[in-house]
């Protein structure tokens, strides 16, 4: 283990910045040219409207959200009309849509158009309805030098049968991907690092879907119940040689999730596998403490393969902020984007320094955050294959290709599921993508590269 703890300050800042600009420039240049505006990943015009007017944006998101619950095209159009009526000054095309929606025939037409629109958007973010249907897409990614992790979208788990159903779906996905993937062509960058082989089959799992019993105030019971379903998954993954990654969700479930994973992975039967990972959320103010806990565990872990730590900023920012405000609690997340970004960079260095006790995955669409990881990894003397970059399907497609073209290992997170199941996910991604503070919308607004790559 090279864990000679290097103080982040020991990386020369100026040199790091120089590397970041260089790598960021290379990545930007490698973006497919038509993709300078990743917002086109969304239904571009609708999103342009939406981003310019908060109330319109709210109405459209609420519409997307209710789409799967509508029972007919008429019902769908009625919802669209009623939601748009809440917008005080609707732009002319919207007003026209609303006029149409006052006749039944008009509603059917509008409903059909709207349904198609939502479906189109959903397909940007959701690869397929089932793992079997996703296989072709996963293989296509692999062929362009991109690994994947499959995420099974689902409705909230509130009952035991729902938890069993989700566990079965994960299990089937593992089986199907592990059966299909040996036929994929050899891709050395994607299949090994200094610590050894990296599984081709990779599934991301949500603990909240594995048990109906997660309660923020009493994490143990949900943890026990989830353990009962996670163990068979881990066993199966071990037999199949697949990787299981445990996603991190809102702070309410963090303790249960983290403790569950750290506890299960050192049970004797899992010491020799499967390959597994968890997530660290840099938007949390206490994430450095969490990192310390995870790294301490990793250093003393008797497991044969290193834990993969996926560093993210965090997908529940608004939820955490609102919940804390409603309860009068201190805000658990950074409230200034630059503080979150700085913390992300510091944690990046810390994780990189902790190799090979952990495998490091940096999951971000932010060119600066990604360039920082690559630069820091190299300055710390790491090989490129000892750093993985991860992106979300639909949001990071261009970055994914740019990274692959530079020979980096990139993994794309591929949600699978039907529209009803995927709606919460879809709405979160839409919100994230049109949020003013997101890197992608800054990039889409045409912010110059130097600014995008500037230190946070």
């Amino acid at each position, binding site marked *: 283990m090279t864990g000679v703890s290097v103080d982040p300050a020991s990386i020369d800042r100026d040199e790091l910045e120089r590397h970041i600009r260089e790598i960021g420039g290379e990545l930007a240049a490698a973006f497919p040219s038509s993709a300078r505006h990743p917002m086109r990943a969304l239904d571009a015009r609708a999103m342009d409207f939406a981003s310019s007017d908060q109330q319109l944006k709210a109405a459209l998101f609420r519409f997307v959200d209710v789409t799967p619950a509508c029972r007919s095209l008429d019902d769908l159009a009625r919802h669209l009309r009623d939601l748009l009526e809440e917008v005080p000054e609707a732009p002319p095309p919207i007003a026209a849509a609303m006029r149409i929606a006052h006749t039944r025939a008009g509603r059917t037409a509008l409903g059909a158009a709207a349904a198609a629109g939502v479906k189109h958007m959903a397909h940007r973010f959701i690869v397929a309805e089932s793992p079997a249907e996703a296989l072709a897409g996963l293989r296509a990614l692999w062929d362009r030098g991109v690994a994947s992790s499959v995420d099974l979208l689902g409705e909230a788990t*509130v009952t*035991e049968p729902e938890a069993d159903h989700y566990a079965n779906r994960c299990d089937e996905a593992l089986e199907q991907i592990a059966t299909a993937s040996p036929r994929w062509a050899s891709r050395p960058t994607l299949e090994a690092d200094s610590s050894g082989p990296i599984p081709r089959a990779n599934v991301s799992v949500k603990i909240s879907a594995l048990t109906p019993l997660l309660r923020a105030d009493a994490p143990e019971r949900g943890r026990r119940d989830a353990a009962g379903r996670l163990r068979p998954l881990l066993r199966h993954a071990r037999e199949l040689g697949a990787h299981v990654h445990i996603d991190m969700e809102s702070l309410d479930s963090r*303790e249960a999730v983290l403790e569950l994973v750290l506890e299960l992975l050192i049970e004797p039967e899992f010491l020799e596998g499967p390959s597994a990972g968890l997530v660290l959320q840099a938007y949390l103010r206490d994430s450095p403490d969490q990192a310390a806990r995870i790294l301490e565990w990793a250093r003393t872990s008797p497991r044969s393969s290193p834990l993969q730590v996926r560093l993210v900023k965090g997908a529940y920012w608004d939820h955490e902020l609102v919940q804390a405000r409603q309860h009068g609690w201190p805000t658990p997340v950074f409230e200034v984007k630059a503080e979150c970004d700085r913390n992300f960079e510091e944690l990046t260095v810390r994780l990189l320094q902790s190799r090979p006790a952990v495998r490091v995955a940096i999951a971000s669409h932010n060119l600066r955050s990604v360039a920082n990881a690559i630069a820091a990894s190299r300055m710390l003397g790491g090989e490129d294959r000892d750093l993985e970059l991860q992106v979300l399907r639909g949001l990071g497609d261009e970055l994914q290709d740019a990274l692959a073209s530079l020979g980096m290992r990139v993994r794309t997170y591929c949600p699978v599921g039907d529209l009803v199941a995927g709606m919460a996910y879809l709405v979160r991604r839409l919100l994230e993508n049109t949020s003013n503070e997101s890197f992608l919308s800054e990039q889409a607004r045409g912010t110059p590269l130097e600014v995008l790559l500037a230190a946070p």
Partner: protein
Amino acid sequence: MAELPPFANEPVLELRRAAVRAQLSDALARLDQQLPLSVPVMIGGDSRSGEELLSTDPGDPDRVIARCPRASESDVAEAVATARRARGDWGMRPAKERAAALLAAAQWLRERRLELAALEVRECAKPWREADSDVCEAIDFLEYYARGAIELDRGAALLQVPGERNELDYFPRGVAAVISPWNFPLAIACGMTAGALATGNTVVLKPAEQSPGCALPLVQALRAGGVPADALALLPGEGDAGAALVRHPDVATIVFTGSLPVGLEIVRAAAEPADGQREIKRVVAELGGKNCVIVDADADLDEAVPGIVSSAFAYAGQKCSAAARVLVHEAIADQLIERVAGAVRVLVVGHAQELETEVPPVIESSAQERVARYAELAASQGRIAVRVEPVPDRGWFCPPTVATDLPPDSPVLAEEIFGPLLAIDRVRDVEHACDVVDGLRFALTGGLFARDPATVRYVRRRTPVGNLYVNRGITGAMVGRQPFGGNRLSGTGSKAGGPDYLRQFVEPRAVSENTMRHGLVV
């Protein structure tokens, strides 16, 4: 007193943090060492202890939580006489001084939050989170009404014309009898008492016989904060003490939270003037409910199911605001029933002190019997979608139950059960659901899960309930955010924790002064 910062709710404990949870068992152990508490009759500087009444732990009925004497008619007479004498002093104090006493009481409670929550865990079987919320709400009432009373003291704006000065001010009504329930043993007693005191009334408090222990710290807090002993009496006792208070000619205001039959009895008694009575008694009553949650076909069931389950079963359904019925659109009824039943099946029925507990025992054996009677009726008239069994033998546990397919005239659908029994009905549409709600005698809280804004507007227009909650659970009203109280037979429409509440404790007096002297305005 310096300008007060704006009101903010007292933050509940962040129990999702392990370090916060770790403090709870210590607090409970500290409390247990003090049990049983002795709750005296407290009138002025005097106090009289006794052992005629006992309150016990609903989860362990052998454990005595508090012992107290049973207040007698002569205690009532003496308490009211003392309170009446104290009016002159307390009622004449500047509003800011009274407010300061309330704020000091809030601080007293704040310093003992965990111990007080522990007391509710034991005496009322309130699970920790709910117990803590109750303590916070008590603090909120003190803080909110302190500010409200200062505001009210400014009087109201009137039209002024040359040569006259017109003023409208609010004065205390006199002695208030506060008769409080056990289900929010600190918060409701505190809110009713603090509302009366803040506006300069004096108070005789008769807490529920099930929770005298929780009333004691309230009186201690207010007295420690600066409310004169004569201005606040504590009368632990039973219904007869309450009835005597209500009938007493010197009681001007009766503030009651409890069941409909007792509430109507109070209204009747208050309407009958006693010899020597000088005021028309005012009754501020918060009574029962039969609260319905409407679920439209476009509802997000991922949100509706947990919202319904916690609204119906938290604290074993013993909240005035709890969900008793679900009215679900027929298009999604099967799916909703299946998911609610599944979510209820995994509820943890257990002791209040266990953090995992979601459904604690009910308050007493008669409550257990009542709930069981309704559950049997539901089983014979309809279909039981789920009943969570077995439940622990010791303690007043009731199996959480969901019933469906009940005939429209079933008492299960109309009467307040106040326990962990939820009825789900199918409706043709939201209009049909509104008709059902409109047919009920009660109108306390209601819920709606729907995603079309036109539906939300429609239900808002049609529902008579005092508190409508849209796309969320229907319990947990917050002071200053969800002023709480019902209409129809659910109460007098008073809104606890809202801007109008204090007006019920005051009488308005207008003064018009001629400012013309010898043809000059002076």
